[in-house]
């Protein structure tokens, strides 16, 4: 008799925990993590903002105006530090670039990260230690592409970066 009651309460506990888990998965976790939102509750709560689709729809209008216009930016890479400057690019879109440092050499890694990737995967197009570089690249996948500069010296270094092509500027990261 007592054993039956224990069984019942264990089964009840397990079922309750499963039900709560399922509800929170369907309503909150899956919409936020994977943009899977069968009920629409996640969207109405604004939980689907973590999905990158929402992020790229806004700048697409701006994309038209930025297209092919030449940009020039000055970036300071602090001594002993690394800095990233990124562009959001569609698959097979192209960017021409040229950069030069004020003084001294920087370690550079020109690379791209696929859109929506959370594993930290990236692909390098060029790795060098140089005081200037000129070239172009075509994005092999949609995502965030750009330069990582590392200043291994003990004084700050300025970089002038000039570029044009098909992208949305994401800027410093």
């Amino acid at each position, binding site marked *: 008799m007592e054993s039956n009651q224990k069984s019942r309460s264990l089964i009840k506990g397990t079922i309750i*925990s499963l039900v709560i*888990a*399922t509800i929170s998965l369907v309503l909150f976790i899956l919409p936020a993590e*994977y943009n899977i939102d069968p009920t629409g509750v996640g969207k109405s709560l604004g939980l689907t903002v973590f999905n990158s689709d929402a992020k790229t729809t806004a700048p697409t209008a701006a994309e038209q105006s930025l297209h092919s216009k030449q940009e020039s930016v000055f970036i300071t890479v602090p001594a002993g530090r690394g800095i990233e400057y990124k562009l959001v690019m569609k698959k097979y879109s192209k960017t021409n670039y040229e950069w030069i440092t004020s003084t001294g050499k920087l370690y550079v890694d020109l690379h791209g990260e696929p859109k929506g990737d959370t594993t930290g995967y990236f692909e390098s197009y060029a790795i060098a230690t140089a005081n200037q570089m000129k070239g172009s690249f075509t994005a092999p996948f949609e995502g965030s592409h750009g330069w990582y500069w590392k200043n291994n010296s003990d004084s700050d270094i300025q970089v002038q970066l000039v570029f044009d092509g098909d992208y949305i500027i994401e800027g410093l990261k």
Partner: protein
Amino acid sequence: MLSRSTLAYLLHAILLLLAIVSVESFAHGVDDSTRSFLENNTGVQIIPFMYIGAKHMLTGYDHLLFLVGVLFFLHRSKDVLLYVSMFTLGHSLTLMTGVLANIQVNAYLIDAIIGLSVVYKGFDNLGGFKHFLGHQPNPKIAVLIFGLFHGFGLATKIQEFELPSEGLMTNLLSFNFGVELGQLLALMFILLAINFWRKFASFDRFAQTTNTALMSAGFMLIGMQLTGYFVN
């Protein structure tokens, strides 16, 4: 009476859920600055790797939930030490061999099993195994085995970065040591909280609710990770 206890179940699980949702912002991977460090790392870096290990453990709610489950009914420091050692032995073993022997396991599946370990411990604390199987499966062995899976989980996080072989052993040992430091720090807080709570009558009254909530959190982890596995 029945409806009151059901309500208590629900309330606590919802509280726990809120707590989980709020730590969701930590995410469970590695953040941007850590990533940029790992990508550009060369050679031996003892302190940074220790820091990453400690941070991963302290912000890894799946590991912490499991520890809460393991420690819930342990009040003798001898037992605490023994169980934590079993867990440490388990995860260190697979963390080191996983990375050094380059054993590739799917991170989502491993994280789902880590979720299962939380469900297991919650059910075990409810006395479920003892009741249905007639005896409790050796809890020390269970902690050791799940420790092995937690270690594989830690290994997959490090393997994502394809660390250079130069200084790998030292870096790994530093990471592992950092994990233990982070675990020790987390344990202090968990033990403080549980031991404090244990003094009150509410501890026994809500033990069942808490462990049911723990199971629920484990089920959420399983669901989240399995979905991730099928989506990617």
